[in-house]
Each structure stands twice: as C-alpha cells, then as structure tokens.
C-alpha cells in the first residue's frame, strides 16, 4: 500500500508538471497533453486511480485466461513444464470423445437452466409475498436471504444431512406422507435435482432481493391504474407487473447462472472430495479433478476454456444489453 501511495504522489507531481507543460503547449510537444488530447482531459491524472487495479485485474483475470488457453493447446500433464512449442487442439478433440466430459457438460447445462428457472420462480413468489405490505417485512426478508450469507461448504453440510437416506429431514417428511425413501444423493438420476434444490434454497433469497427491487421500482400508480382499469390482483400481476420485471429477471438470471457454474464448492464439500456423487459431475468439478487429482493440466485447461465459453455465452449478451441501456 505504501508503495502504491508513493507512486500516486509521483504521478501527482507529474500532473502538476503536466499543467506547466500544457501552458507551453504551443511551443513543444508533451506526451501527457497528447494522451489527454486523445483520451480526454483527465486521462493521465486519473490513471493513478484506475490503472493499478486495472492492471491487476488484467493480469490475473484476462492474462490468466489467455495463458489458460495456451496451456489447453499443449499436452501438458504430470510434472514439469508445458511445452508451448507444440500447440494443437488435441485436448478439445479428446474432450469431445470423453463421455465423462459430455455428461458433465450436459449436467452443467441442466443445472444452469433448471436451477435458474426454479430459483427465479421461487424468488419471484417470495418477492410478491413480501411486497404485499406485510408486517415484519424485514424479518421475513432477512430470513429468506439468510442462506445466501453461508458458504457453499456450510450449506453442503446442511443438505448432506437433509438428504440423508435414513435420517434426513426430507426422507422423514416423505415417509410420513406414506411415500418410500428416496436416495437423493446416491441415485444418479436424482442427485442433480437434489443439488438444484439445495442451491435453490441458498439463492432464492437472492432472486427475491432482485425482484423486490424491481417491484419497488414499479410506480405505485401502475398497480392502482390496473385496479381502476378493472383487473383482479392475479390479473394485475400477470399482465401489468411481472412483464415489467424483465430487467430484474435478466440480471438475476445471469448472476444465478454464474453461481451455478461455480457450484464446485458445494459438490466438493458434499462428499469431501474431488469426485462429486455419480450423476452430479459438472464441468467445474471435472476441471478441478482433472487438474489437481489427475494432473491432466492441459486437458483441465481445455475443460476450463469450455466452461469459460459457456459463461461468455451468458454474460456476453448481458454486457451488450447493459451497454445498450447505457449502464456501462
């Protein structure tokens, strides 16, 4: 930090000099003035604020992604160093031939879509309930959002117990309803939905908060106008209010999908290991497993790039949408 501030001081001085240089602009050339001319009057002076963070992010995020792409083109595995001299798409063709990868990709997709949909639906329901001018609104909202503050690791513990075959709350409840026990975590056909359910528990509060903000942004007059226009409460929500939540829905969906892509922590903690329960392998867990359990670095990088492209597919249009709406 100290060093950082020092740099700040230096460039501060530089700017003061820049001022002088500007005065003499007509006589000579000043690089600072030239930069400012091109990028805007405060470009140089403000860079002391945004440039260091920007470089940090640029290096660690975007530099790393490019590096990752490079590694995914090598055959790097085991111990040693990647050989950047020999780049090809072998790892990607391997992925396409790997049924585990295909399964993980399909699971990722199902999780993405399923989780997002159910969470949005529940979140919207909660938001509407909360928004009905209730008493103790803050208490309800706080509790609904509570799981969001917990670590994936913690919620995994809770849900491992909830889904426990013999003594979990869920099986207790369904047996008390006269149904047979279900092996939530063990059955590969069910486990993904069970995970989805647990994640929904954790993030429905988030969707609620976003929708609530959306609901509150709709002027009271719209509710009243719909009433005066003769609509019942249900019709009012269906025709007038919910269609106006498009923006909230989009931003909540994007964030939820990104959460789903990151569900690694949850799956890892559920079993305490790199291999999630059968049927719940997703690209995020596969990537980490290939890298850190199997040392297939290049292959893991290729999986990671696939995951990244999936994210980009979601976030890219979102960024574009935000840009068009002038939010960037």
């Amino acid at each position, binding site marked *: 930090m100290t060093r950082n501030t020092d740099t700040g001081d230096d460039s501060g001085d530089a700017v003061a000099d820049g001022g002088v240089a500007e005065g003499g602009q007509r006589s000579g050339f000043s690089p600072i003035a030239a930069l400012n001319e091109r990028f805007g009057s405060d470009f140089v002076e403000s860079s002391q604020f945004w440039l260091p963070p920007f470089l940090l992010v640029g290096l660690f995020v975007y530099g790393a992604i490019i590096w990752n792409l490079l590694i995914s083109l090598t055959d790097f595995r085991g*111990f040693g160093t990647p050989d950047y001299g020999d780049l090809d798409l072998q790892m990607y063709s391997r992925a396409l031939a790997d049924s*585990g990868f295909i399964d993980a990709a399909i699971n990722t997709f199902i999780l993405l879509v399923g989780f997002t949909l159910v969470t949005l639906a529940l979140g919207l329901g909660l938001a509407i309930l909360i928004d009905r001018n209730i008493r103790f609104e803050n208490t309800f909202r706080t509790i609904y959002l509570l799981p969001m503050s917990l670590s994936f690791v913690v919620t995994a513990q809770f849900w491992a117990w909830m889904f426990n075959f013999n003594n979990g709350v869920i099986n207790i409840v369904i047996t008390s309803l006269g149904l047979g026990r279900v*092996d939530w975590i063990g059955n590969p056909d069910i486990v993904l939905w069970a995970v989805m359910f647990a994640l929904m528990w954790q993030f429905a509060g988030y969707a609620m908060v976003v929708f609530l903000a959306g609901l509150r942004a709709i002027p009271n007059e719209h509710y009243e106008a719909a009433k005066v226009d003769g609509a019942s409460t249900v019709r009012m929500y269906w025709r007038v209010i919910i269609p106006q939540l498009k923006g909230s829905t989009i931003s909540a969906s994007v964030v939820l999908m990104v959460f789903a892509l990151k569900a690694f922590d949850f799956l890892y903690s559920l079993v305490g290991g*790199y*291999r999630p*329960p059968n049927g719940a392998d997703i690209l995020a867990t596969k990537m980490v497993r290939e890298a850190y359990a*199997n040392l297939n670095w290049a292959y893991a990088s290729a999986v990671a790039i696939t995951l990244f492209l999936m994210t980009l597919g979601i976030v890219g249009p979102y960024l574009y949408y935000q840009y068009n709406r002038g939010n960037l």
Partner: protein
Amino acid sequence: SGGGDGSDGSDGGDGGGNTLEVLHAWTGGDGARAAEALVSAFDEEYPDVDHEFNPIGGGGNQNLDAVVANRLQNSDPPSSFANWPGPNLQRYEGVLGEVGDVWESEGFEDVMVEEAVDLHQYDGAYRGVPLGSHRLNCLFYNTSVVEEAGVDPDSLTSVSALIDALETVQSETDAIPMTHGASGTWTTTQLFASTMLGQEGYDAYMSFIDGSPDEAAVRATFESLAEILGNYINDDASSIGLTESNQNIIEGNAAFIHQGNWAAGAYRNAEDFAYDEDWGFKTYPGSEGMYMLHFDSFLYPSDNPSPDATEQFMAFVGSEAAQVAFNQYKGSIPTRTDVDMSQFGPYLQETQEDFASADERPPNLQHGLGVPSETMTTLNDVISSEFSGPYNVDAATEGFVDAVSN
C-alpha cells in the same frame, strides 16, 4: 507452492535442510494409531533425526495425492510419502529417486515377498520400500445373521454359491444380504476385481490386468455383479461409504461385505464384537488359495530435501521393528516373510499364514498394483457412468475392455 518447505533446502526457516518430512494419509482411527506407533518406533531407532510426519486428510488418498502432486510439480518435494508401488509409480515418472542402495544394504531383496521386490522397481531401479500389506479378496460376515439364515460361509466356494447364499439371506431374514458402500466408485471396482478373480480365475484376471482382456470373462463378471448389486445390497448403498456400510455388519443389519481386510480394523474397535464369534472371514468365493495383494509403501522423491535422513527412514520402513509397530495397529501384515507374528491377533496371524502359503498373489486392481492410475481413473469413470445403478452390463464391459486394452 502450496505450502511446504523451501525448494532447495538451504533457505527453509528452521534449518529444514535436514528435517525429514514424511507425508501420509493416515489421519484417523487405526491409521492414525498405526502412524503414531511407526513414529515412536522411528524415534527409538533414530533419535537424532529431525522429522516432521504430516498426515494429509480428506477424501481418502485423494488429498494426499493432490498435495504430493502439487509439491512435486513445484519442485518442492517432501522427503518421502506414502503411496502404492507397482504401475502406480508411472504417474511419478521422472520425479522419483532411487533407493537401490538401501535395498542392498538392508538385504530387503531376501526378506521381502518376491512380488514386493518386483513391484517396487520402476525403470529398473528401486523407488521405495514397502511397509505392510492388506488383503483384498475378503468376504466378511456377521455370524449371527448367517446363522439365522442357515448359510454356511465356508461352503461358498464360487460366486454363484455366493449369490445363492445372498438369496437365502434375503428370503430367510430381514437383514441386507450384502452391504455395499458405493458413494465412491472404488468399492465397486474392487468388487469387480475379486469377483472376476473368483469367477473367471487367476489367468483371466491377470490377462485383464495385463492388457489383453477376454471380453466374455469381463461380461460374465459384470453379469454376476449386476445380479448382486441389483438385488442384494442395501437401498442406500449409493449414498454411503465404506464406514457406514461396514457398520451394517457390526450392527447385525447385514450378512456379508466384501472389502479389503482393513474392514476388520473396525470390528476390532467395536465393542463386544469378536473374531469368529460375532464376525467371520472367508476368502472371496472362488479365489481360495489366492491372496489379492496390496502394499502400503513409502516412495522416495528425487531432488530429495534430506537425502541422508530419508535413506535412514527407508531402511527403517523395511525393518521388522517398523513393520511390526505399524501393521499390528493398521490391521495389515508385514511384507517381510521373517517377522515374528506373536504380537498380532489371531485374525492377522491367519492372514499372514494365507499370505505365506498362497498359491498366487495377484496384484489388486483398485490400489495401484494392477494398472496405472490413469487406467484406474478410467475404470472408475466407467463404473460411475455405467454401473452405479442402473447396471449396464454391455456398456460397462465395453468400457473396461477399452480401458485396459493396450
């Protein structure tokens, strides 16, 4: 550099250059106690060696493997780490040193079982020293449950006999015929190995491991497995692990379990649960006279941070003192053939006798001795995707055959 010593031994804080750093995964239960016994025996033998024994917990051996891999990757190797010899050594290609002089000076080649001699060599050099051995083709049972069902375990000498017995248990009692903990795939892979050995015989098993599988044998094995797993195991098999599964035997909820003989460790610790009275052991049906081999060994990384101390440690690991100290707690047996077994319990004594007198000692499939780790991963992936209910015999067969074929 995921935590660990300075890489070149000269910069480590507390003179780490000479500190012996040993990584293993025995973090709980018998393992922890055995590791403790090992350490104190080591202290007794080599009081001057600075050492640091680091148990790496979590996920069975997975975490240990990951940590070791990472440190080797970062050229920051520990002095030694616990692992399996055999084809498993392939994955440490290029980062293991040689301990041939230890073998020579200690005369290990003469006292270790011959399989140990073979399996600890890679690329023509010794890479580690064995500490103990578990047996894998075991079938344990709860005496009272099998009695209630009217089944005589000793009479089960083929897989089909086993299946019949399971059927009997199913119809005669409320107990689970065979308990299975399949939350990890490894138990099923391991069951495959024992079943194949028992049903298809030694040669079929060995050619499978050696990369020239007989598809019909593999298919037949999977068919039997499908029958067992599809009909006779516990409902919650897929969500529990070995420990809970084994608990079913102890609590009298199940008749049989197939496991390595580490399962017996839990019986020893359970109250009022005595060998031969409450629980019994039977070689996995059909594999009588065979001892499916397993080794716990310590490997020697090259670029060793404490070469001298490590060599001392290696010599110690192969010594009688170490093997007795460790194995009696671990529930395994020494890999030396010249050990006095009097300190071991009756079950281990029997195991040692079987070991010594076995006709064949086929290497295990799941624990490193049979196939390289990469193949093992693939086998487990096949189990995971095709054979964890519903049981797809065709796909599993194809997957296994492809995985081992070379």
